[in-house]
C-alpha cells in the first residue's frame, strides 16, 4: 500500500513543481509588484488612494513612452544610449522655437509647434543613428554613445546651459491637464503603448522587427530589407524620445539642458518612491 502511494506522489509532484516555476517565470514580476504594493500600503494607508496612483502613473509616463521605443530597439538586439540627451535636445528645440515666435502663445497652438519640432528633431536624429549603424556598420552601442554626448552638447550650446521656461496653458496642459480626471500624459503613454503593441503584434513591420532581432542573416536571405527596418526602428525610438521630451517640458513648464540625464538606464531620480516606480517601469517593458 505504502509503496503505491509513494510512487503516485513521486510521479505527480515534480510536474507540479515545474508548473509552479513556469507560472513564477511568467507572472513573477507582477507578483513582486503586488508584494511591494502591499508593503507600501501597510507603511502608509494613502498609498493606494486614487490620487497617489494617478501621481505615480504620471511619474512613470515619460519612462513608459521611452520604454516602448526601447522595446523595438531591444527586439532587434540593439541599444540606444542617446535617449536622455536626445530628449533634452528635442524639448529644447521645441521650447526655443515657441519662445522666439512672438505672438504664438496667444493663438493657443504653441504646443503643436513644440510637439511637431520635438517629434521631427527626435526622429531625424534617430534616423541618423540608424543610418550610421547600418551604412557605416558601427555597433549601435558606439553610435548611440556618441549620440549621447553629441545631443547633450548641442543642447547646452543651444540654450547656453540655462533652462527655457514660461509656457502658455495650452502647452502646459500636456504635462498637467487631464481628461475626466486622468492626466493627459498618462493617456498619451497609454496610446503609445497600445500603438506599440498593435504594431509589434499585428503588422508586417512588427514581424520583420522580430525576425531581424532573432537572426539578421536569415532575415536578409529571406528578402527583408534589414537595414531599412533597423533605420525605421531607430527613427521610431528617436520620435518617441522627442515626444517624451515635449511632455517632460510641459510637465516641468521648463525645457532644461540637463533633462533626461541617466534616462537611458531608466534610473528615476529625485524622488523617494524609487522602488515602486522601478517596479511599475519594469512591468511596462
Amino acid at each position, binding site marked *: 500500500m505504502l509503496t503505491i502511494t509513494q510512487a503516485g506522489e513521486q*510521479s505527480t509532484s*515534480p510536474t507540479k513543481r515545474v508548473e509552479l516555476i513556469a507560472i513564477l517565470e511568467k507572472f513573477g514580476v507582477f507578483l513582486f509588484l503586488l508584494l511591494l504594493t502591499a508593503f507600501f500600503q501597510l507603511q502608509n494607508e494613502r498609498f493606494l488612494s486614487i490620487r497617489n496612483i494617478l501621481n505615480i502613473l504620471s511619474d512613470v509616463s515619460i519612462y513608459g513612452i521611452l520604454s516602448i521605443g526601447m522595446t523595438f530597439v531591444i527586439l532587434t538586439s540593439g541599444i540606444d544610449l542617446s535617449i536622455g540627451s536626445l530628449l533634452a535636445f528635442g524639448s529644447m528645440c521645441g521650447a526655443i522655437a515657441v519662445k522666439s515666435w512672438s505672438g504664438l502663445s496667444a493663438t493657443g497652438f504653441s504646443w503643436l509647434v513644440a510637439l511637431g519640432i520635438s517629434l521631427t528633431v527626435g526622429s531625424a536624429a534617430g534616423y541618423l543613428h540608424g543610418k550610421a549603424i547600418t551604412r557605416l556598420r558601427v555597433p549601435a552601442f558606439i553610435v548611440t554613445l556618441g549620440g549621447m554626448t553629441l545631443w547633450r552638447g548641442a543642447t547646452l550650446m543651444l540654450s547656453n546651459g540655462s533652462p527655457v521656461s514660461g509656457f502658455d496653458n495650452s502647452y502646459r496642459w500636456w504635462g498637467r491637464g487631464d481628461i475626466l480626471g486622468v492626466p493627459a500624459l498618462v493617456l498619451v503613454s497609454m496610446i503609445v503603448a497600445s500603438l506599440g503593441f498593435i504594431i509589434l503584434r*499585428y*503588422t*508586417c*513591420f512588427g*514581424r*520583420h522587427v*522580430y*525576425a531581424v532581432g*532573432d*537572426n539578421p*542573416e*536569415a*532575415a*536578409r*536571405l*529571406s*528578402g*527583408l*530589407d534589414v537595414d531599412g527596418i533597423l533605420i525605421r526602428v531607430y527613427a521610431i525610438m528617436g520620435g518617441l524620445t522627442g515626444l517624451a521630451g515635449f511632455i517632460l517640458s510641459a510637465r516641468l513648464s521648463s525645457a532644461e539642458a540637463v533633462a533626461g540625464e541617466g534616462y537611458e538606464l531608466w534610473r528615476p531620480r529625485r524622488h523617494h518612491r524609487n522602488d515602486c516606480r522601478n517596479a511599475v517601469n519594469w512591468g511596462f517593458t
Partner: protein
Amino acid sequence: MLAEATVPPTNVQLLDVRGLSKSFPGVAALNGVAFSLAAGEVHALLGENGAGKSTLLKILSGAQYQDAGTIKFAGKLLGRESPLERQRLGIVTVYQEFNLMPNLSVAENILIGREPTKFRFVDWKAMYRRAREVAQRLDLAVDPLTPVAALSVAEQQLVEIAKAINLQAKLIILDEPTAALSNREVGRLHKLVHALKRQNIAFIYVTHRLDEVPTICDRFTVLRDGKFAGSGDPRQCATGDIIRMMVGRDLEPSPTHRSVAQQSSETVLQVVNFMRTKKLPSAPAIMLRSMSLELRRGEILGLAGLVGAGRTELVRAIFGIDPIESGQLFLQGEAIVIRSPRDAIRHGIAMVPEDRKKQGLFLNQSIRHNLSLSNLSKLSRLKYFVDRSAENRLIERFRQSLQIRMPNSETPVRTLSGGNQQKIVLARCLALSPKILIVDEPTRGIDVGAKAEVHNLLRQLAATGTAVLVISSELPELLSLCSRIYTVKESRITGQMVVEEASEEKLMTLMTLAPSERHTHAAID
C-alpha cells in the same frame, strides 16, 4: 529474429530501460520504449528525425525526465539525478554540438570541474600531465596547452571523448558523431570506439549513416514515432530491412521522370562570366573565376564539387548575397542586376541556404512567423496588417503538401526535428511561387524518409516548370535527381554533362583533377 531479439548477447546488463514514455504538449515523444545494453557493447540507435532518439538521449543523460517507465543503470534504479549526477554515475553524452569552451586549452576542457589542486590552487603541472595521459590513451596528438578553437572538428570530438574517459564513463552516448567527419576521421573514430569497447565501455551510437552500423555496432535498435520498432544484429540484417523499420514502409525509388525535363526548353537563367578576385570580409575566402552556367525551365540542374570548391559561393553571388566584380545575369533573355536577396526574390528567384539554422531559420520564433516571413506583403490586409486567416491557409497548405509534422503553428521552430525544419525553410521559399529555386545541400543531416520527401518535392516542382538548381556533396543524390550536372573545382566550372552520360567516377574526376592530370588518369584507366 528482428523484433524479438532484445536480450543482450553477452555479459552483464549495464542499462535496462523499460516502458519509457514522455510527452510534450501535443506530441508523445516516447511511448513505452524498451532498450537494453550490456557493458562493452556498441549499440546503434536508429530512427528518422523526430522518432524520439533525442528525447531518449536527453532522458538518459538527465536533461529531461520521463513521465513513466524505469531506467536501471549498473544494477541501480535511476531516479531524478541531475545531468551532473548522471555523469558521476558514468553516463556521459557527447552531443553533436560540442560542450567545449573554445578559448580554454585542451587540458582545461578535459578536466573542467575536476581540476587537480594544490593548497586550493590549480595544480597546472598535474593538470597537463593528466590531460596528456588521457590524450595518449585516445591517440590524440595535440599539445594540451592548445586552445580548443584551434583544433579540427574531429579533434574537438576527441577532446569531448577524453572528457568522458576522465569522468570514468561506463556508457558514452555519441549523438551523430560522424555527421561532420571526413572518411579518414570516421575510420579513426571507429578504431577508438573499438579500443574503448575492449576496456568495457559501452556506447550508444546515434547515426544517420547506415553504412557504418555493421562495421561498428554490435546491435541496433530502431525507434519510430516514439515507439520501439525493432532491434537486431546489424551484421545479419539487410540495410533495406533497417530502413523499412525506420520509415514503416518501403521507400519507393521514385520514378526517374528526369527525362521528362524538356531538353529543348527555354533557358530561364543564364549566368555569364561571374568573377570575383577580392576576398570578402565575410567568411568565404573563395573566389569566382569566370563562372558561367545555364538553367532551363523545368529541369533540375546539379552543381557538383568538393566543399570549398566555389559551388556555394557561385549561388550566393547569383542570389545577391555576395557581390561580384564583373559578369552578367540574364533572366529569360533579359539582362538583370541583382544586388541583394531582396532583388533576387523580386525577380522570382528563391533560395534554401546551406546552413538552415544559421541562415534559414528564426529558431526562437513560431512556425507561423518562419513560414510566412518572405511572403508577408502578399498576406497583408490594409497594406500593413498581417492577414491571419490567409496566413493560416498558407500554413495548412504547406503542412499538408510537405507533410510537416508539427503540434501547431505556434510551436517554436527550435523544437522541430532537422527534417521538419528543412521543410519549413523550403515552404517559405515555395510560398513565393518562384520561377527559379536554388537549394544548397537540401538534405544535409536529415533522415532517409524526409530526404525522399524532399527529392519528390523537387521533382514535382520541376515537372510544373520551375527551374531547380541543386548543390549537393552526395553524388548519388545528384545522379538520381538531376537532368544535367555541372562540376566545379577551384572556383571554375570544369565540366557539364547530361545525367545519362554521367557517373560518380566521371564527376569525381572533374571535381578533383586538373585537366592535364585528367588525361593521364584516363590513360591509366
